[in-house]
């Protein structure tokens, strides 16, 4: 009788652990799933002013006044016909925007 009880309790414990483990695995998998760019934007508020950067590691304050430029413009320009409008329309439909 005692052995049967122990066996049942063991089965029940293992079963419960199994369910909890499955939930954990599913939760982990869900967290790793990538979120597309447009869905991410729904949660983003314009919080650029809240970002704090370690200024000892990154020099953001470029003093251009103290730098003597010897060029007109940075970058080589090329022009192509705009073929993105149908892609934009299709994506807007797909993303419901």
């Amino acid at each position, binding site marked *: 009788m005692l052995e049967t009880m122990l066996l049942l309790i063991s089965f029940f414990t293992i079963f419960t652990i199994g369910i909890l483990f499955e939930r954990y695995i599913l939760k982990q998998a869900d967290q790793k799933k990538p979120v597309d760019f447009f869905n991410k934007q729904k949660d983003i508020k314009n919080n650029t002013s809240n970002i704090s*950067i370690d200024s000892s590691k990154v020099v*953001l304050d470029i003093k251009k006044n103290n*730098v003597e430029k*010897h*060029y007109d413009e940075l970058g080589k*320009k090329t022009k192509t*016909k705009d073929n*993105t409008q149908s892609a*934009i329309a299709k994506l807007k439909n*797909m993303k419901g925007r």
Partner: protein
Amino acid sequence: MSKGLDVGTSFVVLSQYDNENIIFKDFRDAFYVIKPNTPIATKMIEKGLAGKIFVKDEDGSFIILGKDAIEKAVERNETARRPMYRGVVSVKEKEAKRILSYILTEVVGQASEPGEKLVFCVPSQPVDQEDDDFDVGYHEDVVKSILAQTGYDARAINEAEALCYAELEDTDYTGIGISCGAGMTNVCVMLNGEPTVVFSTTKSGDWVDRMSAVATGEPDSVVQVEKEGGGFKVGEANENPVLSAVASYYERLIDYTAKQLSAALDGHKALPKFKDPIRIVVAGGTSRADGYVEKLNEKLLEAEFPLPIEEVKHAEDPLHSVSKGCLIAASILD
């Protein structure tokens, strides 16, 4: 108005609309510093730099920027420095971050109106780097802050996701985008416009340069210039020893990439069950080597890629595709 920006390890590419056209602005992400010791040396260096793109810093040193930096480094048998490493802001040198900030603000310019939308790309977490050295969050915040200072409302998008938006319209945004940059290879598996799997590998064009430089005893910049001059085919022998090493390491890189892709996707829980064979679109500066796309197709089959492939296609404009994808994303936000 909106803008797209590909912040790459080797190139910064800005894209924006101009009536019925798109204007791309490319700038090489490189710099080289010359610090003169005497006033005479200063004059001589300045004379030698005539016609080159450079700035004279407040301490009197010359910072040569872009393609000219690589040329000058090659001339001196040295290697040009880069503000980015493996797709993110280089943590190796403080000067590099200042230069990146300078290049970005100069290339992008001031926003046409406060809060103008700008979408820039960031890489994914690599699958072949197990330590915690790589994190994209800090890089994203740094770039966002730089762009915010010039008046933009900047948002980050995954690099390969942007590529898919630019190149997979025909397949209703279903397929795989592979962005082969200088520092990393970024991958996005997309199903009906939803990215289902994104990851990256840490070997790409720079790895080819490094390994070929080691094999031939030449500086990385020399190898880079030879490589970008073309005149070799992936996996084929070449009379030029540098190009021969480049061709050989290119094949090894493609083999590595195909194996990593197959291993990463094989049995992946989030991988969709595609009903039809899928299209793989390849872009990025590293993919411009002659024979790259054909070899990738061949190596994917050899590596038993877990999905049936319809075709491996090269993007029409491989250097600008990611930036174009960013521009598309920015236009939808606008």
